[in-house]
């Protein structure tokens, strides 16, 4: 999916000056299947950026369009289609269901959208080292385990672009490397793009483009 940011300025960032290469208040295009790193310090709008793509906030100036269609014209069903088949998200606050087990957190997603068979999900959980937490409620898992579960959930559905907001912030280097390899493998399988926001420019993921906020 081709994403165009045409002089977007979110309301909370209206008062701040934006650099000439910033995503905000400039025109930026993310092509279909492109891998993009959004690198910025805290408070620069990384989460706002993710929420704009998910259609969770609409308080901005400028125009955002997906495949040449302006998002401000989108209906409820348009946004549902985007969330179900176009984008897959790893939100910064993970958005897991704390009372449901790992298995249920994954199934509640794949049952809606189709996708991974349960054996494959178990295999991936084992790869990321959370297979022992299969029946454990997400709410009592560690932040690192929850982060890996949220990555698994995002990978389990069909998508054209995966959007991840600081997905490795609670992972050690080893687990980060495992997660990145799984993400890259899945993106390759689906010929999908990737958008990663991060505080840490050393995140070892290969990208086509880096955008500043």
């Amino acid at each position, binding site marked *: 999916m081709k994403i165009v940011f045409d002089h977007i300025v979110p309301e909370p960032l209206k008062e701040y000056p934006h650099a000439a290469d910033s995503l905000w208040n400039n025109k930026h295009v993310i092509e279909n299947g492109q891998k993009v790193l959004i690198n910025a310090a805290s408070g620069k709008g990384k989460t706002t950026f993710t929420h704009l793509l998910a259609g969770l906030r609409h308080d901005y100036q400028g125009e955002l369009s997906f495949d040449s269609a302006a998002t401000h014209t989108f209906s*409820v*069903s348009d946004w549902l289609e985007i*969330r179900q088949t176009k984008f897959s*998200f790893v939100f910064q606050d993970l*958005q897991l269901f704390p*009372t*449901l087990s790992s298995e249920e957190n994954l199934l509640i*997603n794949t049952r809606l959208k189709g996708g991974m068979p349960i054996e494959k999900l178990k295999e991936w959980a084992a790869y990321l080292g959370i297979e022992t937490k299969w029946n454990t409620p997400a709410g009592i898992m560690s932040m690192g385990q929850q982060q890996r579960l949220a990555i698994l*959930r995002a990978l389990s559905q069909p998508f054209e672009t995966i959007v991840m907001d600081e997905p490795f912030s609670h992972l050690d280097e080893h687990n980060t490397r495992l997660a990145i390899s799984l993400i890259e493998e899945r993106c390759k399988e689906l010929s999908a793009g990737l958008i990663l926001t991060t505080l840490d420019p050393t995140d070892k993921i290969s990208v086509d483009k880096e955008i500043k906020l």
Partner: protein
Amino acid sequence: MLKKLLFRNQDKKQLGFAAIGALLGMTFLITSAHFLYRINEFGEGSEVLGANILILQRKVTSASTFNLSNNDFTAEEISEIQQQPFVEKVQAVKSNNFRVWLETNSDLVPPFKTDAFIQSIDKEFLDANASNWAWSPESKELPIIMPRDFVVMLNTFMSSAGIPQISDEVATSIPFKLRISGPKGEEWLNARIIGFTNEISALLVPMEFMNYANSKYGENQDGKITQVIIKGKEGQFGSLEKYLNEKGLEPKKAQMIVGRLKSIISTLILIVLVVSIVAVISSVLVLLQYMHLLLSQNRYEVKTLLRIGYSPYYIARHFIQYFSIVFAVSLIAAFGLFFILKWWINKTLQIGGIYLNEDLSIIAVIILPISFLLFVGVGTFSARKNVMQLFNK
């Protein structure tokens, strides 16, 4: 899984109270609507007097009680009434000038005998289907129209004697004997009830019989005319009432026991119906309020479902399905309770001599789907609105 996510952790006490509220409200609503319908139709089917009929008499005062004023109608007065533009027809109600006794004439019912007072009116004041309203000295049976109060009284007698009471249908099949006597002799006639009326408190007989009996057994030919019957013109009862007040006349209808009873019971039931509607609305509001509470308790879960792509309508449907099942269970239980209440109220009324149709009324059946559809409609609107608010946040 969605059910587990959204409905597992809830305090069901409030849900239970709301469901009990809906159950009681719906029980009273169905019961009161059913009985309002049945009470209003009570006696309608067998009422033989036509529409727009009024029986008039002078207002009874202390002076008239002690014969200090005259309660009779003169020929001039009757003629004056006839000339009023809102009166289609007026006629003196003829009464008997001889003694009358009525008694049952069948082994199937217990012997019952009473003094009676008879009056007569023309066929044109009766309902169109009272076709057998005729008599001649050769007739085998005398058709009579019975005041409904008489059936209530008869049933009260039956009840106190421990005898099964009779319905309108049974009463019309009982053969009676009428004994008339005067200074010139006496006569026995077979009689049969052909219908009932709430309007007149005497036994009604055809005019031909009254003329025959008055001339043969009466003490004097022309009795005093204390009542007249009027057939008013359609839609002009307002003018008629004004005229009656000016002339010191009152409609006999207002004094009838069954009429008053129907009116009092109907009013009481109407009050219960209004209270029931308020109770149902309150309990539905409590149910919907609880749904909102559940939605706000699960605000995070609902928002997350929306974020991962669940449709707001699909989520709202889960909530309304859950509460529709709760409401449907309350409705079914209310219908069961209604049957018990219906049986008890019918038995109680029968002890007082009032036989209502015991069949399930159409209104009681219709209320169920209407209430359910209204609940689902309002609930769907409310749940969608709430979930959409979260979708747009």
